[in-house]
């Protein structure tokens, strides 16, 4: 079984700060991590490798330093890793990104046919959830998004059964290989890296592909040029015109503060009081 897992290196959003004047992301000193959602995809792929044998090939598009993210995945037990890196990819939106990754997966598939492609649900920096569906469409793979569990795979019959998270419930879907799965978060727990794999990861020769190596045929479809969306404005959340009407408990008693609060709210919003009374009285 040959599985390709797509990952992205992202800044740790918990540590992101925005410059108060220029409204730009201050990346300095913010650690780069493997997109946390992608780890659920990787773990699921590794479990399938444990069960069926075969290979897990990691794929990432990004700057040269994204190599660290791939090395991390090797330490968890992935077989191989390819970093697609070229200045020509810079500024890509999701459409251009899916074009580049699809080309690279086709190339990887020439080495050994690909049975499954995994991605995370979305990234924590872009939050689009669009690249997985884009890759599937371009490669003609069956798209299985928001998968919460793989019920069954029959390699001989080339069939796969998955549970897919939908609004208000779970769909049980039966599809065929090859397919692309975007894995839901919280569906498994990432294993610990073994000492052997950590040593292997440190020395692992990660393959770096430029746009030609990745088999890009049409350069007008990658990078900024291949991106139909344009970021026209970036700005911080607007502060409220008026600040909160604040009372301090230390200044008076907690009973006074709460009674005061009720009076203020219900005076300013009589309809809210009315609705509460009607609903609770019913």
């Amino acid at each position, binding site marked *: 079984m040959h599985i390709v897992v797509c990952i992205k290196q992202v800044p740790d959003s918990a540590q992101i700060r925005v410059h108060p004047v220029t409204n730009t992301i201050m990346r300095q000193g913010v650690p780069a991590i493997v997109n946390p959602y992608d780890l659920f995809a990787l773990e699921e792929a590794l479990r399938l490798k444990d069960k069926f044998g075969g290979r897990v090939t990691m794929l990432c598009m990004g700057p040269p330093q994204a190599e660290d993210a791939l090395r991390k995945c090797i330490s968890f037990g992935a077989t191989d890793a390819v970093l697609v890196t070229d200045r020509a990819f810079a500024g890509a939106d999701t459409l251009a990104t899916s074009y580049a990754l699809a080309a690279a997966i086709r190339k990887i598939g020439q080495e050994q046919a690909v049975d499954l492609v995994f991605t995370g649900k979305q990234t924590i920096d872009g939050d689009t959830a669009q690249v997985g569906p884009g890759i599937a469409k371009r490669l003609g793979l069956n798209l299985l998004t928001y998968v919460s569990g793989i019920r069954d795979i029959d390699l001989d019959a080339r069939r796969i059964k998955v549970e897919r998270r939908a609004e208000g419930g779970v769909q049980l879907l039966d599809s065929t290989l090859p397919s692309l799965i975007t894995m839901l978060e919280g569906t498994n727990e990432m294993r610990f890296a073994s000492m052997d794999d950590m040593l292997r990861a440190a020395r692992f020769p990660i393959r770096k592909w430029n746009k030609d190596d990745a088999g890009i045929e049409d350069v007008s479809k990658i990078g900024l040029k291949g991106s139909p969306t344009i970021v026209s404005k*970036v700005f911080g*959340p607007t502060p409220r015109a008026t600040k909160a009407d*604040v009372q301090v408990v230390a200044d008076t008693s907690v009973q006074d*503060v709460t009674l005061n609060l009720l009076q203020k709210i219900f005076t300013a919003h009589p309809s809210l009081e009315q609705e509460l009374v009607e609903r609770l009285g019913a």
Partner: protein
Amino acid sequence: MTEAPKPAPARPAGRAGRNTELSEALKAYKGVWVFIEHDRGHVNPVSWELMGEARKLADKLGVDVAGVLMGGLDEPLDAFAREAYAFGADRCYFMRDPVLKGYRNEPFTKGLTDLVNKYQPEIMLLGATTMGRDLAGSVATTLGTGLTADCTELNIDGRALAATRPTFGGSLLCTIMTLAYRPQMATIRPRVMQMPRRDDSRTGDGIDTPLGMIETDVVTKLIEFIPDATRNTVNLAYADVIVTGGKGMKQPDNFKLIWDLARVLGAEVGGTRPVVQAGWIGADRQVGQTGKTVRPKLYIAAGVSGAIQHRVGMESSDVIVAINTDANAPIFEFAHYGIVGNAMQVLPALTEAFRSHLDKRIRKVA
């Protein structure tokens, strides 16, 4: 890789090598469409929220609004269309086929792509749900057009859609436009847009188009739909009153105070991401960027600092009350009312104050 914000000029013109001009052929694309999401007899309310928004955009552009209804032969698409007209649609495009019963990516992608190519809308809106995001990504890739995910604000700039979305976990907002491609596609976060007023005197016309696909053409089979057991117990997104606890509640046991207040108000209980991650409360109660977006009439937050990730999920609530020991907590910058004090003392007093006040009022009404 995604729409990462870069320092950009206020106007996007003049980017090296980029086509920002609309071709003559694409200028023919007219109208604002809403994909009406429905499942097992119910329209997802986000579709009506979008219908209201589509109406506003279309009125600015001087064009029509259309709804897209795809489904099985025995699904009540005509009844949904009447609702669509009442909420602002001028027209509905129907696709009825047994293959379209229960959402699957393949036939829905084909159907919606065909409709777009045939009737050529300039804007296409979908809910940012598991269905909308799955479908939008496939359709936009097939059409080779721009798609902006999970938007929280829509506007018209010139003649183009300006779609604003939070990025980097909500720390920043960016406005994204698709200038040289049509349709301009966007998925919109549920509960961010207001539910439009319903006008049942409005009508519209319906156009039927065949799907042109049979069951044997579809690879993926829907074997079963397993509804959530908790489906009717937690409906945070649509609750009128929500009491939320954050890490400032100190211990899981203290959440009892949150539940007590919620009971008195007939409210739902919410939690911040750290509280959900600590297991103090279920993930289906998380409010914020990676949880639910809510817009209740009253939102009471206790021990919540007001991190941006939380703020984006609740800031459109009508009345926000914050209780926090730290007078400098960010939540006081966007709450309407604040109490600086220990939530463990304030909550019981607040519960008692609401109880006695509302009891008195209810008795008076009775």
